[in-house]
């Protein structure tokens, strides 16, 4: 069964010509900060939405997004393409910024998941066919929410990037700094853990499997 994501993509898919253009923008931005403007225009919205999913508060999200771009501008001289697209690099900075924010503030992390995305995740985790007529009720969704809460941070990160942000395995790997095959294998392993947890009668289990 192939794992496909139903989440709307929040990062644009670029054509080769657009990637080449982006590389010229990056080269120009290294010399002059004002030349960073087109990159900022292209990625502000996707990064804002990515951060907003994780922090909920719009003002805080605005601040963190600004911080992401500030750090990326400062680190631009050190950025080397070498197969890592600029968008994945930005995503990685954004993810680190969000994690740092929660580490500093020791606050509770909440994430809202839309029902269609949760249903898709249940379908994949339970290895159901998409036309399976067994209903995915609220109770099952609640179980999924609890199961996600019990996963390790590295495991939830994979699920979030793949199913809630709609990234491909290649992009998930690029963001997390692992190979595409490793991203795929680890996601399948996490889905297996979720499957166990979603199985009837699994609610009484105390701990989840770890990687």
């Amino acid at each position, binding site marked *: 069964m192939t794992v496909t994501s139903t989440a709307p993509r929040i990062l644009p898919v670029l054509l080769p010509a657009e990637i080449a253009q982006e590389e010229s923008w990056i080269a120009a931005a290294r010399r002059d900060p004002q030349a*960073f403007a087109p990159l900022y225009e292209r990625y*502000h919205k996707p990064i804002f939405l990515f951060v907003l999913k994780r922090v909920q508060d719009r003002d805080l999200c605005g601040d963190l997004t600004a911080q992401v771009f500030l750090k990326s501008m400062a680190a631009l001289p050190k950025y080397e393409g070498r197969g890592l697209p600029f968008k994945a690099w930005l995503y990685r900075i954004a993810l680190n910024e969000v994690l740092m924010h929660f580490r500093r503030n020791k606050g509770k992390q909440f994430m809202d998941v839309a029902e269609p995305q949760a249903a898709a995740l249940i379908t994949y985790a339970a290895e159901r066919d998409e036309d399976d007529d067994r209903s995915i009720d609220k109770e099952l969704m609640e179980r999924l929410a609890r199961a996600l809460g019990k996963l390790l941070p590295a495991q939830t990160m994979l699920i979030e990037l793949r199913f809630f942000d709609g990234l491909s395995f290649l992009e998930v790997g690029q963001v997390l700094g692992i190979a595409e095959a490793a991203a795929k294998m680890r996601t399948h392993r996490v889905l297996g853990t979720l499957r166990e947890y979603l199985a009837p009668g699994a609610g009484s289990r105390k701990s989840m499997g770890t990687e």
Partner: protein
Amino acid sequence: MSKHYRIVDHVAAPSDAEIARYRDFGKLVYNYERMTKPLYKRPLYKDPKAFIAILVIVLVAILIAEMKEKEPPPDKVPVENTK
């Protein structure tokens, strides 16, 4: 740190106009320049005027310190024992 997930009917996404409120490239560049560029382009001690000003301040400070040392100590007032 635990993370909590809420399954909701619909995740309200902000409109483009709302997101644009948080987009300010001018402020980003200003913050970048504040972060990366030093306040002074050349060190103060290499600027003749600033060097003389610093020298004068240091000399005045030394002079004041010397004068303070030469002043006789104030008479000691005996402390009354209140017990």
